């Protein structure tokens, strides 16, 4: 008799505890769309939050990796990532589409106190800085690109994203494209086995780390460098010109896209040498919203994303987001129709 009551009590206790928490967790408030992911696109999404009136948009910039994880686990209604989904991630997401919805660039901010001019860098030097091969700002190779600047004897601290980041994907994509050493040693990805430097979480963290560390250099969405008054470098593109992450440079890079593949994956780093791309900023990137094809909030989501693709783009230029080109827009709208309830 005693054993029976003990057993029954045990089962009841654990069952009650489990039931209480799992059933109570479900529940959505209608009219709110929850999203998470890329901190790269967060400044633009903040504008959309303020100006889109049909639903409440809630967005958490936890990084592209976090966005992919969140939408895969369906803990949010939409995920945002600057890194395209791999085939494994598409499989794990169980019926998701990725839709390019914004276009901007990754700036290279730096912290060199008292520098008399803008820093100029190219892919080779950047790769070697992040590989740990160039360790001081007054190195010969940096000086060669910056005649006219008095570079100090200051150690370089490369800052990278410690979390899984679409901006890292964009940056490593660029470095791998331009430097064979980087491609073989580190590769492309939302994260990497970074050979040297300090890791900071999210775009905010990188901006903070660069701002607080003398001699630091980092990579972050250009909107963050503007907001935090960080100096960013001019990067040499394949045509030999010095490009800045402004509207002109980004637009020129985006001209690379004439057709959108079925997966929606777009890469516009390091446009080749041609008159069309002579002003292209070589570290530009599209960024995606990831939606499930089957969701109870399909109507609200479609309405919001459609607005973001069309009306929402007008809030971009102030933050150095270029409105997406027509060929991408038509792909995005078509893919959006796949989202159903």
């Amino acid at each position, binding site marked *: 008799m005693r054993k029976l*009551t*003990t057993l*029954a*009590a*045990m089962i*009841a*206790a*654990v069952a*009650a*505890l489990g039931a209480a928490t799992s059933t109570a967790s479900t529940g959505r408030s209608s009219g709110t769309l929850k999203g998470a992911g890329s901190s790269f696109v967060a400044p633009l999404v903040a504008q959309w939050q303020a100006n889109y009136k049909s639903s409440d948009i809630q967005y958490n910039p*936890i*990084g*592209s*990796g*976090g966005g*992919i*994880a969140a939408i*895969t686990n369906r803990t949010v209604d939409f995920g945002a990532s600057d890194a395209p989904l791999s085939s*494994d*991630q598409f499989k*794990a997401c169980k019926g998701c589409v990725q839709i390019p919805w914004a276009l901007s660039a990754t700036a290279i901010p730096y912290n060199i106190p008292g520098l008399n001019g803008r820093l100029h860098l190219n892919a080779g030097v950047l790769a070697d800085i992040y590989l740990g091969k160039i360790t001081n700002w007054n190195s010969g190779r940096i000086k060669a690109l910056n005649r006219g600047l008095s570079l100090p004897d200051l*150690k370089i*601290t490369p800052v990278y994203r*410690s*979390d*899984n*980041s679409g901006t890292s994907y964009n940056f*490593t994509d660029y470095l791998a494209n331009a430097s064979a050493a980087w491609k073989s040693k*580190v*590769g*492309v*990805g*939302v*994260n*990497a*086995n*970074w050979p040297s*430097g*300090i*890791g*900071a*979480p999210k775009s905010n963290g990188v901006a903070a*780390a660069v701002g*607080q*560390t003398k001699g630091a250099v980092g990579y972050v969405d250009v909107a963050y460098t503007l907001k935090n008054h960080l100096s960013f470098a001019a990067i040499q593109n394949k045509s030999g010109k010095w490009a800045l992450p402004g509207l002109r440079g980004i637009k020129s890079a985006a001209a690379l896209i004439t057709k959108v593949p079925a997966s929606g994956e777009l890469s516009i780093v390091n446009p080749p040498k041609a008159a069309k791309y002579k002003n292209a900023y070589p570290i530009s990137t599209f960024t995606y919203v990831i939606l499930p094809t089957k969701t109870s909030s399909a109507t609200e989501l479609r309405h919001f994303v459609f607005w973001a693709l069309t009306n929402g783009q007008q809030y971009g230029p102030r933050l150095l987001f270029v409105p997406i080109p027509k060929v991408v827009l038509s792909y995005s709208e078509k893919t959006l129709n796949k989202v159903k309830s």
Partner: protein
Amino acid sequence: MSSIATPQAAARAAELRRRGRFRPGDAVLHGLTLAAALAAVALLGLIAWKVTDQARPAIHDFGLGFLTTKTWDPGTRQIFGAAAFLFGTAVTSLGALLIAGPLSIAIALFLTELAPRWLRGPIGALVEMLAAVPSVVVGLWGILVMGPFVADHFEPFLKRTLGFIPLFRGDPSIFGLLPAILVLTIMITPIVSSVSRELFLGVPRDLKEGALALGTTRWEMIRGVVFPYARSGIAAALILGLGRAVGEAIAVTQVIGGNVAIHWSLFQPGDTLASRIASQYQGASSAKQVSAIAYLAVILLCFSLVANIGAQVIVRRFAGRHPVAR
């Protein structure tokens, strides 16, 4: 039975009668409280099981080699290893214990043996207040106040004076192993000192006074009577402090700089088990990475279980009296 029914006899009789009766209320309370106790214990098992379950793919893929692999590549190669974080955890926790241990014991001594009575209350309360500062606030202070101070003044000072030791070579930085050690020291001092304080208060007065009567100085009395008596308790307190340091994720991740590397210099950034979990778990976008991070959690859990059980066993076995309250 006596004809004069005394109240005691009546009560005893009633008790004897009642013994045989089934009291539903008693059974209900017994069952309810047993259920609660079992639930609490089951939680422990459930935590261990669930985390291990999440780590299973990584344990299967990497096995024990995980503990010696230095690489942590969530990129294209998807190779994971805990060696760099085991190193970081060991360096930061042991470093913090090395500073906080003697410091906390000294504080406990001060509060129990050396301070004038009127000072003990206030100073004791102030040390307890240190425990009231949550880890995220220590981390906030660490990033914005202590970090720059360490980078601009403390680390250059150490470099100048002790730079011949590899630990203090390298370039000063606001993020690194040394700020993490300092932050952990602040976090574990309250625990170790409050446990030590309880221990020292429990040393029998006559033993202490006997020693003093024999002509020892106060310090000799402490060294010869208090320390030996409280020896096992101090060991337990240090182990508890170590367990706390190893498990601290938030304050460490704010100041340590998230770098995967094993190197001598304390000025360089690094990472610990708990800190890596905090910084990467939410954003892990491949199943392999999620299970690798869960594997880190399993290692962390194993360590904290061993440390906790070890400390408790020491206290209960060798202290021989009511377990020390934390």
